[in-house]
């Protein structure tokens, strides 16, 4: 239970950061933390007591292997995270170039 809950706490720290912080880089960091939390959660879901990595050693006795499917999913999720981070940094850099700041309270040109 503790491990599951700590993932949720990590997710909530990320949500809090995105919702409250006023700095573009802080928002990027918040989203990064949320992604870590979900990736961690998936891998924890796939862990088996006393399990080893899901790589078969030819000839060796059959050990307990952990669930490989969540790992495959997380691999994809990591790539998606990298992709969004790259996009966000690119946009943030352009915005910095236009306004000279990362503070969203100063760059809000669009009306609500």
């Amino acid at each position, binding site marked *: 239970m*503790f*491990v*599951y*809950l*700590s993932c*949720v*706490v990590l997710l*909530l*720290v990320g*949500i*809090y950061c995105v*919702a*409250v*912080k*006023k*700095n573009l*880089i802080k928002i990027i*960091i*918040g989203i*990064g*933390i949320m992604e*870590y939390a979900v*990736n*961690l959660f998936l*891998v*924890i*879901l*796939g*862990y*088996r*007591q006393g*399990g080893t*990595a*899901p*790589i*078969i050693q*030819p000839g060796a006795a059959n050990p307990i*292997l*952990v*669930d*490989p*499917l969540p*790992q*495959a999913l997380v*691999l*994809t999720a*990591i*790539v998606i*995270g*990298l*992709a969004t*981070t*790259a*996009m966000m*940094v*690119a*946009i943030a850099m*352009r915005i910095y170039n236009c306004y000279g700041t*990362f503070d969203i*309270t100063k760059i809000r040109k669009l009306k609500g």
Partner: protein
Amino acid sequence: MLELNLLLVFMVVGAIIAVENHNLLSSVIAVGAVGFGLCVVFLLLGAPDLAITQLVVEILALVILIRATIAKTVPETYKGRELLAYGVTIIFVLVFGAFSYFALKYLPEFGAPLMKVSKTYLEEGLKKTGALNLVAAIILDFRGYDTLGEASILFTAVIGTLAILRLKGRKQEKETDELDS
């Protein structure tokens, strides 16, 4: 698993530091520490594939983030905290946390997943695909279609980044007319 719990606490603390720190560069470094913590957790939980990927991705993301923040040591401004936004967020976070406490009880115990589908992968993965690394067998054979999507996402992000960082987005008025007539 004491070391796992310790690492989880370390990650949560690191994340809070990253969120609440007033210096951007320190925040970025703190979130990097969380990422490396995650990498060690992956190793502990029997996911070396993910550990390697997380490690290299973390390095790349850090390099990119540091390049974006360095030489722009604008301290965060804390004028005009919006109390409403704070209040709503904190209420949401508390409700969500409490709610998930009850929901997570229904999950199988930590360390005993259901493995409904994965049993097939473990038992027949090697025979059917010929790959010793079962994660590779899943991402490139059983669920290769996902990986095609994954590769396309990265491609999208690369093209998107290149598109966003063009120096000039719109053509000048004159060029339009020439092309149009």
